[in-house]
């Protein structure tokens, strides 16, 4: 891969809280348009690492650039170039679909014309035209998730961070959601997925698994499974996490 193809570059990235090393010298790269799975048990250091990558928390040591911007000094630029969606919070339930899109578009600094164009495009793609004036609270869970992902990439970020995006939805809705993710990745948006649902992880191009603050493995799901001689990612994870010392 070419150097300028790398959207996330981390080198020995470390975060300490007193004596506790939450994230311990993690080194990895993520490429443009890649769907990258970031896995680990509770307390393995996933959240801390992700906060550093989003520019929300300064590392203790090590280097990292996100979309070419430094995590120590250029956090404002980083925030402009990333999108974020979590299952817990993404949209305002008591605003309509349209109001949510306008609000988030405004936050990301899109012009009124841009917001208008994007809104039409988005509603068309999701087939939500007739629901545009309905409250988000009244939509089924699957639609909410699709909408909140679309809102998270409204400003065409370089990277979108997804936190357990599809837990608890039915298999068909989940696939519609992944179709959106594949499409975004195909447009060149890098997708960074944190989850501890292994079946969700199998959809990623490459997977990293953190254990006790360290990144233990990083490879494609197929390679990991053959490396551990098991049939599912669940078993890979089980073998790795069983040795973990830390709980949450």
């Amino acid at each position, binding site marked *: 891969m070419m150097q300028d193809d790398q959207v996330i570059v981390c080198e020995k990235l470390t975060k300490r809280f007193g004596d506790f090393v939450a994230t311990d010298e993690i080194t990895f790269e993520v490429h443009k348009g890649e769907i990258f799975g970031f896995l680990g048990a*509770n307390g393995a250091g996933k959240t801390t690492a992700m906060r550093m990558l989003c520019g929300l928390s300064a590392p203790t040591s090590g280097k990292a650039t996100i979309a070419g911007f430094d995590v120590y000094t250029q956090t404002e630029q980083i925030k402009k170039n990333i999108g974020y969606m979590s299952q817990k919070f993404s949209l305002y339930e008591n605003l309509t679909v349209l109001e949510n899109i306008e609000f988030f578009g405004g936050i990301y600094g899109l012009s009124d014309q841009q917001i208008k164009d994007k809104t039409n495009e988005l509603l068309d793609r999701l087939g939500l035209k007739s629901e545009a004036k309905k409250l988000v609270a009244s939509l*089924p869970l699957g639609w909410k998730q699709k909408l909140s992902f679309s809102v998270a990439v409204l400003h065409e970020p370089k990277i979108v961070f997804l936190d357990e995006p599809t837990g*608890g939805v039915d*298999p068909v809705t989940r696939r519609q959601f992944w179709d959106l993710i594949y499409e975004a990745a195909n447009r060149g948006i890098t997708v960074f997925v944190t989850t501890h649902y*292994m079946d969700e992880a199998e*959809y990623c*191009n490459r997977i990293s698994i953190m254990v006790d603050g360290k990144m233990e493995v990083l490879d494609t799901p197929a390679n990991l499974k053959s490396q551990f001689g098991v049939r599912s990612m669940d078993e890979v994870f089980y073998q790795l996490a069983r040795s973990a010392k830390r709980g949450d």
Partner: protein
Amino acid sequence: MEAIVVKNITKTYGKGKKTDGTLAVDNVSFTVGKGELFGLIGPDGAGKTSIFRMLTTLLVPDSGSATVDGHDIVSDFRQIRSTVGYMPGKFSLYQDLTIEENLNFFATVFGTTIEENYHLIRDIYVQIEPFKTRRAGKLSGGMKQKLALCCALIHKPTTLFLDEPTTGVDPVSRKEFWEMLKRLKAQDITIIVSTPYMDEAALCDRIALIQGGKILSIDTPQRIVQSYPEQLFAVKANEMYRLLQALENYPGILRSYAFGEYAHATFRDPDFKTDDLEAYLTGQGLTSVRIEAIEATIEDSFIKLLN
């Protein structure tokens, strides 16, 4: 004798004079045998929790009837409440009480003591006993779950209702949890468990696939996957997005969808040849194409039932 018999129960929420309300459970019937490990498998909002709440006498169905251990869920609610164990989905114990205090409290409320039924929980409790003076709020997800299970078991219930016990728990704890359930089954306790995870279905004796308040299918996991009507194929190529698009446009395609790092596909023609597809995909510019005939999983069956 059947431990649970459910006959045509229906439950609607928020039904007013003007609104029809939300239909949460729609004419559901099933039975669970004594000592069986029965799974309700379905996504959020499928009606799993409503079914649990009706069977544990917390809600009254709009219509239909059900019995637990032969007791009617409406008229004999007192008997049911003193014989069943229940772990609600959002159950989080008393965070500011220690392991021991939590367990003691629930034992007393159920009119028993830890000592009396210790044999039932021993296997599970020994794993958390070293931390018994630690407050529940300071425990890891897996340990909380073990404690919750102990609390639900401490009065020696005949039937155990576990509503999404593995949601939000990491795979290691999930695996341990299912092993504990298998051991409890050996104690002759009927267990009915709900989960949104299709991969947990295979661990149950029998399962009901549920969506939109309706049961789509009830059987053993083996029979459910065996009854998958077509031959299923797993397809892999260098690029997922383009593979999915190419499959969708393949003339003989019946269904295709992403499945982890593979795409799963079924075809109209019973004499379908993998070579034809491979040629087509290569023609679409995809490389490293691999096609394999596979057995369906519960998730494939669910998708089939939803379409």
